[in-house]
């Protein structure tokens, strides 16, 4: 019986598939190399750059905290901006995400439209959006809040919609079979099933918005960013250094709190 295995004629293996990876890798390395040459990036300019940076950073070595109360209140304004931006993003995605979830959307066209709206929101960089809104409605925190809200609604909406799609179909079916309506299915099967992901994503967005809100001040959207940009333009490096330290400390603190909260949720 064993010899059967050896005498049996083996069918030929199918042809080996072609491997294109080495070719692509070579092409990509070559392209990166040419880019470096074209942009005149070389070791020498890099070293000069580092030297220049060192000199610039040395101007920030004596932070001036004499106006700390003002910095803190500006930081508070920035935090409030981030918070309200996140609230707007949450509200928009809470209303729209179910319509953009394939299994809950009333119609494929609605699904497409909502998803494209989220894509559009995400595609718009909030810095650019803030710049446009500042010119449209004037300086202050409101354009910053709107910019953060709109651009992160795109992220949050997509996250919520995808989580709602991952809920087992049976849960929606169970609600449908007691005669529940659309809103009831959402409140009793959809949202509770993704509660943990929702909280995690929302904290992540809040976290991101705190970081972004400080930057948005640079284009005149209020908060500590605006004060920082003024300090830099008037060569007040000591004040700028103090503000940067306040910002970094706050962002680290928020980072830490949200990481702790998210861990608690697991």
């Amino acid at each position, binding site marked *: 019986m064993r010899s059967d295995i050896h005498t049996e004629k083996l069918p030929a293996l199918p042809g080996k598939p072609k491997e294109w990876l080495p070719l692509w890798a070579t092409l990509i390395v070559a392209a990166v190399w040419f880019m470096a040459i074209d942009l005149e990036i070389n070791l020498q300019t890099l070293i000069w750059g580092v030297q220049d940076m060192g000199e610039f950073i040395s101007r920030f070595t004596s932070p001036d905290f004499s106006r700390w109360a003002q910095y803190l209140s500006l930081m508070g304004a920035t935090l409030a901006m981030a918070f309200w931006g996140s609230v707007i993003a949450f509200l928009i995605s809470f209303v729209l995400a179910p319509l953009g979830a394939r299994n809950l959307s009333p119609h494929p066209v609605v699904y497409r439209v909502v998803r494209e709206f989220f894509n559009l929101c995400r595609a718009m960089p909030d810095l650019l959006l803030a710049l446009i809104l500042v010119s449209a409605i004037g300086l202050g925190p409101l354009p910053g809040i709107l910019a953060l809200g709109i651009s992160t609604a795109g992220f949050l909406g997509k996250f919520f919609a995808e989580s709602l799609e991952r809920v*087992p179909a*049976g*849960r929606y*079916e*169970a*609600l*449908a*079979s*007691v*005669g*529940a*309506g*659309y*809103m*009831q299915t959402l*409140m*009793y*099967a959809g949202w*509770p*099933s993704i*509660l*943990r992901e929702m909280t995690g994503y929302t904290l992540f967005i809040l976290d991101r918005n705190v970081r972004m809100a400080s930057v948005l001040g640079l284009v005149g959207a209020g908060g500590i960013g605006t004060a920082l940009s003024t300090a830099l333009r008037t060569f007040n490096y000591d004040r700028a250094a103090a503000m940067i330290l306040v910002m970094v400390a706050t962002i680290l603190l928020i980072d830490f709190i949200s990481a702790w909260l998210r861990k608690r949720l697991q």
Partner: protein
Amino acid sequence: MASIKLSGVHKHYRNNVHALKGVDLDIPPGQFLVILGPSGAGKSTLIRLLNGLETPSEGRVVIDGIELNKRNLRSVRTKVGMVFQQFNLVDRLNVMTNVLSGRLGKRSWFTSSLFLFPRTDLELAHRALARVGLVDKAWVRADQLSGGQQQRVGIARALAQEPALILADEPVASLDPVTSTEIMGLLREICDEQGISVVANLHQLDYARDYAHRIIGLNNGRIVFDGPPDQLDSFAEARIYGRSANTRKEARHDLVLAHA
């Protein structure tokens, strides 16, 4: 009390599957009906037709003299409870809320979206939980319960609907034998005591013999057996679970492919 009448029911799915090929069925009120049949025979489709989770391609489904259609779907569903193989509870909500969700069909979307229910609903849910013996777990989150307990909550949710009919789609397929007999016994008691009709899909012949008033055998979309449990002899079994020569050949062919 619910009487169900299916006449000339066909079901075609979009992927060219002809799941039911002309089913006629009368279920009198208070009957415990078990549907047997091999996988793919159309058991689930038949059950899901009875609360409109599927709509027939041809034929009529009539419950208590009302023909199921899109407009009366919600009102019919409020009277038909359903129990699932995977329980389909929301694991982050507590047991009480899961049971209360059985009342949703009769409540307005606005108050129920705020998780507000009339006191009478709470009493109903309380009674349903007492019926399945889980009152002490009322405020425990559903994912903390064992499989058998979760299925009891599923039954309590169906009871909270004050149903005339309970559908059970393979209610014990994910449970161990001991828990399975408990769940089957509970369903049978509910049927006997409260006169609620039960229609259940099963894979186990023993449970069908022990708990059913009447057994329906489905094969390849047709009813091939209909009678009380004591008529389910080996001939009937062969008819229900037998494959046609054609499908057997197909199965062997699949096996060869898998080894290649």
